Structure formats: C-alpha cells, structure tokens
C-alpha cells in the first residue's frame, strides 16, 4: 500500500484515504521527503479527513514528517483531523505542538500561503 502524493505547482497534496498501518506510514515518510527533494516543493498539505484512528505511532510519524520536511525547507500543514480523532489524541497525551493545522484542504492552502509568506 502506498499513499499517493500529488503535485500542484510548488506544492504537494496528500489525501490519506485508508487505514494507515505502520509500514505504510514509514513508506509515506520516505516517499514524501523524496518528492519534496525531487520537485523542490516549498509546501505540503496532508489531509486527514478520512482517517479514523491516529494512535501514538502514527502521530509520531506525522509529527516527524512535519519536522523533517521543515529541515528540508518545506512547510507542512495537516488538515481535516476529525473531532473524534482530536479528542482521542488529547486523551492519549499527544498535543502535536508546533504542527500547523487547518480545518479543511481549502483553509490548509490558505495557511500554507501564510506560513510561506506568499
């Protein structure tokens, strides 16, 4: 299973549509960093609208993706985190501080422009 990564001008768009298992998450991390490198992308939006479970491992991978992309010079915004998922993350003790988030894809792109000062 591979998560598709779409290119839109200088940005990359990702919509995670399936239950993520650990291998898929790690593969995605590599694929995304490769794509950022190859395309010289400055921003990424990862939409999590269809994701029903984010456990501590997946949360760690997502947080790492944001930090790693940042190191490479690309900003990542996470969008579409469901109410139930947000409540569960806080119960788990995961706050995803310093991770830019937005309500949906549209607002995610706006947030990305702001982060990049465009």
């Amino acid at each position, binding site marked *: 299973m591979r998560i598709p990564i779409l290119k839109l001008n200088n940005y990359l768009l990702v919509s995670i549509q399936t239950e993520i298992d650990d291998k898929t998450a790690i593969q995605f991390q590599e694929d995304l960093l490769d794509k950022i490198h190859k395309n010289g992308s400055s921003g990424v939006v990862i939409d999590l609208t269809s994701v*029903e479970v984010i456990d501590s491992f997946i949360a760690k991978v997502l947080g790492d993706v944001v930090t790693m992309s940042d190191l490479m010079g690309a900003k990542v915004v996470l969008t579409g985190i469901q109410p139930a998922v947000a409540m569960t993350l806080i119960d788990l*003790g995961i706050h995803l501080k310093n991770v830019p988030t937005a309500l949906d894809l549209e607002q995610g792109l706006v947030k990305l422009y702001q982060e990049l000062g465009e």
Partner: protein
Amino acid sequence: METQSRMNIQQELDIVGARQLGRDIAKKIGFGTVDQARIATAISELARNIYLYAEDGQICFEVIDNLGRNGMSIISIDSGPGISDISLVIQDGYTTSGGLGAGLPGVKRLMDEFDIQSEAGSGTKIKTVKWLK
C-alpha cells in the same frame, strides 16, 4: 451477536485488523463515534505492544451485558518477556521503542478500567473496560 472474539497478533498488519474488528464490535454495541475512536486507538496501542515486545499474543473482545450495565472489555494477552517495572511503563513519556511513550498511559486514559498483570519471563495480561453511558 457473538459475545467473544479474538484476534491473533503476529504481524504488523494484525494491528490494523484488531482495531477494525474492535471498532465494529463497539459500533454494534452502540458506542458513539468518539468512544469508537477511543476504543480503536486503545486496541491499536495494545496490539502494537504485543507486536513490538512479545511478537505473539492475542487481543480478546468481550461484550459485557451485566444487569443492564453494558460495555466492552478488551483483554491483551501475550507470553512475551513480561514487564519488570509496571509503574515505569504506565508513566507518560517512558519508552524503550523510540515511540512517544504515550501507549499504556494513553490506554489508561482512553478506557474506563485498566488492570495490568505481568510476570518477568511469562508474559503480560492487560484488561481494560469501556462502559456504555
């Protein structure tokens, strides 16, 4: 409806299988979406612990119908190396796998009841319950 089911955890993909099965059962019993997510997430953490530390174990699901008090219990059983210091592993941020250390303390917060028994060399049993409100 079956009152007991179990899922063997032997490979990484079983973690996803276990949480999907658990969520389906939770939904059938009548848990709302937030509790379904809590239960599925707790199962995910328990199943990953089995996979990471014990390699082989089971997650058992049981529907509780007890004089009108309904709920669901999730029991994680493995015959792995066991946990020598339980108070340490239920502390936030403690990890030996490079994770967030949110697993077991997280499960405790996600569920209503949490009981852990472990013996070095013979395995670990964790019983958790979520009550329907």
